[in-house]
């Protein structure tokens, strides 16, 4: 069944499919970045394939071994048809390190794509809310890249000074500011 997916994809997107492979029972299609979202939408909506479950997206960093540097790997699955397929997109370092977002096809890709950005620095174009997810905001670098050292150290986050800091951080929030200011005035021994 999954073989049929590869055949169908090759047929439908002649140039877009760079190569297909079947390895240890896993069927994999390497796609050009431009057609990724299109393919995903097709796989999801087509009645024969019905890839209704987004399983995973991750990347493999082939630093100094291959170019382009990153394989972005998507795992898709159909709960109704009980088959699955792997899609790969190859992207390079630097400005080229981006993939289009598939959150429009499966909402569940949201956090996985954020993790992709967080861990590998592969930007996800069109993601509704691309923030770091596992690391904190001030994190420098992307930890799962092969050039990030295993024992990498991060600059220390400065200690938060006082509760006033918290209030200043939320200047738009009238509730917090209101409660904070009133209390601080009414309390002399703070």
């Amino acid at each position, binding site marked *: 069944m999954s073989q049929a997916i590869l055949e169908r994809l090759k047929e439908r997107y002649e140039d877009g499919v760079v190569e297909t492979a079947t390895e240890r029972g896993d069927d994999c299609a390497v796609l050009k970045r431009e057609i990724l979202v299109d393919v995903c939408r097709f796989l999801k909506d087509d009645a024969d394939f019905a890839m209704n479950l987004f399983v995973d997206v991750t990347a493999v960093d082939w630093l100094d071994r291959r170019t382009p540097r990153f394989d972005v790997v998507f795992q898709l699955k159909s*709960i109704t048809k009980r088959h699955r397929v792997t899609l790969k997109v190859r992207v390079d370092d630097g400005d080229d390190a981006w993939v289009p977002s598939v959150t429009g096809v499966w909402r569940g890709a949201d956090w996985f794509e954020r993790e992709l950005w967080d861990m590998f620095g592969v930007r996800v174009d069109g993601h509704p809310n691309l923030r770091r997810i596992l690391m904190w905001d001030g994190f420098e670098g992307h930890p799962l890249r092969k050039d990030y050292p295993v024992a990498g150290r991060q600059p220390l986050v400065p200690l938060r000074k006082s509760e006033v800091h918290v209030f200043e951080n939320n200047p738009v929030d009238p509730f917090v500011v209101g409660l904070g200011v009133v209390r601080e005035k009414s309390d002399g021994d703070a």
Partner: protein
Amino acid sequence: MATPETARDPLDVDDLPMEPMVLKMGPSHPTMHGVIELTLRLDGETVRAADVEIGYLHRGFEKMGEVSTWNQVFAYADRLNYNSPMLNELGYAMAVEKLMGVDVPERAQFLRVIASEISRICDHLTCVGAGAMELGAFTAFLYAVKAREFLYELLEKISGHRLTVNYMRVGGVWLDMPDGWDGAVRQALTDAAGVMREFHKLVTRHRIFFDRMEGVGIISQEDALAWGFTGPCLRSTGIDYDIRKAHPYSCYDRFDFDIPVGDKGDNYDRYLIRLEEIEQSRRIIEQAFDRMPGGPVVSSDPRVALPEKGPVYNTIESMMNHFKLVYDGIRVPPGAVYSFSEAANGELGFYIVADGTGKPYRVRVRGPVFAIMQALPQMLIGGMIADIVPTFDGINMIAGELDR
């Protein structure tokens, strides 16, 4: 690299009629287990917006996997879902075996299934018990913990430890089961079932519990699929998808068991499904003991299995093989596979890439809870603060596999 422009605050809801209260729930909060930060916007007690911040238990599993040998990763895999370590080990072992093409002996398969199912019961017991405790029924929680303790003792007997079991190896398991273990398992399962009957009587049909769970944290079938739900959370919406049945692995196709499904996709469904899966796992274990074949418990493939101790002590060939396996690790041929299994919370996937050396080039874990947790705001919005507790527990968030 800076965060791109597309980042925005999901709490930025500008159509609310009045000023909401912002409440930071966690990470130091009894329900959040110290690892989740929820930022809520509240209208009175009603949740109007929520944002989930994760990563407090990020230990770099995937990075550590790249500098460990294939067998050392088992020690890390234990700590993914620390309630059911056997299931993680099974998932990881299957991935490596799939990439290497190693056949696992029958008896090892059966032992793996038994150990995994005991782990699954432990996980479900923890989930339903903790759920009851967080709703205030502390006695019910301790009954569930007591039942779980019977099972942990079994795992300790077969693997040496309760949680950090490190029992499975590539190509089989560490040791055969000790003498009398099967009887002990049957006895413990009976005892645990007796304790769980009391648990069941205490809470399941009590109206306070029912009202707290019923109709709370609802997720529809379409939404559940769209968010990538698997496991009990997906089954609670009425989809009978269980990898053990849909893509049978190990020797699950030889056992007769049923998949419990819910109707509404609410917390009560998830609770009942876990209760029922405990029964089904028990059935599997009993069948496995009845049909347990003999034979070795670890593959004889010299690429993966350490040679027997006797020859190692006494012959130079085995000694060399032993040294090669210890120093270089198992050499996995280059390639990449995605292997998945049904963990206690859903699909646990391992995407492993090998470059032919003794260490993985990349180990990727797809934790089931990761996909489910992103739907948490949707399940919370519209409910009350108190509803966060059962919903959060119904998901059975395990930070180990969420943050990895």
